[in-house]
């Protein structure tokens, strides 16, 4: 194979892996949008909050340390323990469930049957509140997240491809792990929603609120369930992104990258979130590779949005979204 083609293949593979990361975030959006029609702007911040909490718990950071010190004149900072990664992740998952309960009790419950725009505004408020809370609880500095996931270039793949094609592919171990985790997560979610009683209730609520009520499904329970699952998905996304680039507050901005993914895949489709993420990931890497040099590079910043715009014009419901039919 010619060198150029091999290189393009490598770029594409890297794009696929990056796309998995986008998919992980988009997945959380789709879950909540399907079940409640809420576009959850706070999904990215949920990922940030989960990652912050994970790091904090793992390193035994004292939450609200700054505030406590300022008020009481103490100098607490750390409990002095180091939790094993598994324990910290489990605890963080619990925190996310607790957060889901609180969000339902304090915000959503009071906004039942309000217009979507109101709920959207509420999630914007929620996003900034959570960002502030994360800051006050755990501090604003960039943190290193290490839960023992392999990082760096996979030497196996490099040597195997080198002996096969005479060209070694550079692929990050973390990306491979992220891909495997995403596949497992999506399969588990699909099986749960297709075959379990709560999954059936969840699909029922996504389809028709009134009908769901009439068969005895509690909307509030389903919302807590969905936000818990979305919180868990955010935790997974937070771990992956946090390991990759450190836990920093710009993490909350990946929510914006998930938007074009959703436009491509459709807001109500789980497979759509995955495929949309992959297309964007591959698309922006390949575009940058082939077209970038001609127009001065840095196309990754805007390519996804441009692609979404084109989709909006020709297929507004996305690839997998429900077709918008207006009956007259």
């Amino acid at each position, binding site marked *: 194979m010619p060198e150029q083609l091999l290189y393009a293949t490598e770029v594409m593979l890297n794009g696929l892996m990056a796309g998995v990361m986008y998919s992980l975030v988009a997945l959380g959006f789709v879950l909540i949008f399907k079940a409640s029609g809420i576009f959850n702007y706070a999904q990215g911040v949920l990922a940030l909050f989960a990652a912050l909490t994970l790091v904090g718990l793992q390193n035994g950071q004292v939450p609200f340390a700054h505030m406590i010190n300022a008020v009481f004149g103490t100098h607490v900072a750390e409990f002095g323990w180091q939790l094993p990664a598994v324990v910290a992740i489990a605890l963080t998952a619990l925190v996310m469930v607790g957060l889901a309960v609180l969000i339902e009790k304090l915000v959503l419950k009071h906004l039942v049957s309000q217009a979507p725009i109101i709920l959207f505004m509420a999630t914007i408020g929620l996003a900034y509140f959570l960002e502030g809370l994360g800051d006050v609880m755990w501090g604003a500095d960039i943190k290193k997240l290490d839960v023992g996931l392999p990082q760096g270039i996979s030497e196996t793949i490099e040597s195997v491809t080198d002996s096969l094609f005479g060209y070694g592919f550079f692929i990050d171990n973390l990306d491979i792990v992220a891909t495997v985790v995403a596949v497992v997560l999506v399969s588990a979610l699909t099986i749960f929603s297709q075959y379990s009683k709560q999954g059936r209730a969840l699909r029922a609520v996504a389809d028709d609120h009134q009908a769901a*009520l009439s068969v005895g499904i509690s909307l509030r329970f389903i919302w807590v369930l969905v936000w818990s699952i979305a919180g868990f998905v955010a935790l997974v996304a937070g771990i992956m992104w946090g390991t990759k680039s450190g836990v920093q507050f710009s993490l909350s901005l990946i929510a914006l990258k998930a938007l074009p993914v959703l436009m491509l895949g459709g807001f109500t489709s789980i497979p759509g979130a995955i495929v949309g993420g992959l297309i964007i990931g591959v698309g922006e890497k390949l575009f940058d590779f082939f077209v970038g040099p001609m127009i001065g590079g840095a196309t990754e910043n805007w390519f996804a949005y441009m692609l979404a715009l084109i989709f909006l014009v020709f297929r507004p419901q996305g690839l997998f979204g429900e077709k918008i039919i207006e009956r007259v």
Partner: protein
Amino acid sequence: MNAKSAGHTTADGRKIGGVLMEMKNITLRFGGVTAIKDISFDIREGEIRAIIGPNGAGKSSMLNVISGFYVPTEGEVWFKGYKRGPMKPYQVARLGIARTFQNIALFDGMSVLDNIMTGRLTMMKSGLLSQALWIGNAEKEEHAHREKVEKIIDFLEIQNIRKTPVGRLPYGLKKRVELARALAAEPKLLLLDEPMAGMNVEEKEDMSRFVLDVNDEFGTTIALIEHDMGVVMDLSDRVVVMDYGKKIGDGTPDEVRNNQDVIDAYLGVAHD
């Protein structure tokens, strides 16, 4: 027929029991509009009770009060001898009151079978964890409920569309699936909101037969709203007639048919 007795048997041999549900002085207001004005009536165990009236009489509002979608402004709802506090619709459903909707509220994206299975959600006992991990009795339970659902599918003669997504079904069949879902909950009281609306004669006959069969076979108490006077008179044991939110008649079909107020409401009053 003496409706006041504690229990009796109808001419066709069905057993009518004591009072299952009692509405006491129900009033329902939306802002300045009074949808229901001080209405009282009861529903006895095992009977088919119809609520009829012209458009805008407040029939659907009454059904929504019974099923918990509306909370009455004044008045009391008694069920199985207990006064029911203000409840959410899903809590009412769990008491054993199932319903269908005038405009059909099914889960369009799900198969007929899945739709009917949702009717049994309240009866499934296994918790979130055992369901998520498919351990404990989750699997056994699913099979048991599946069996019951298959019986209902047979009963309503919809075997051949079991796996079809509901969104693709014609109107008449959707109505039948909705009835099946309500039946799957094995309700004490079944509420049907215009079960024959928009149907042709043949479909109406089918539906009437199913309503009678359900009542006969399972002994389910049924309260239904219907426009079609003919259908109502054939089906029901007792009829409540509403007009402009008020009750203007209550009794057997024959009594109601000969009630002057009812005749006026349906045919209009001569002004001379």
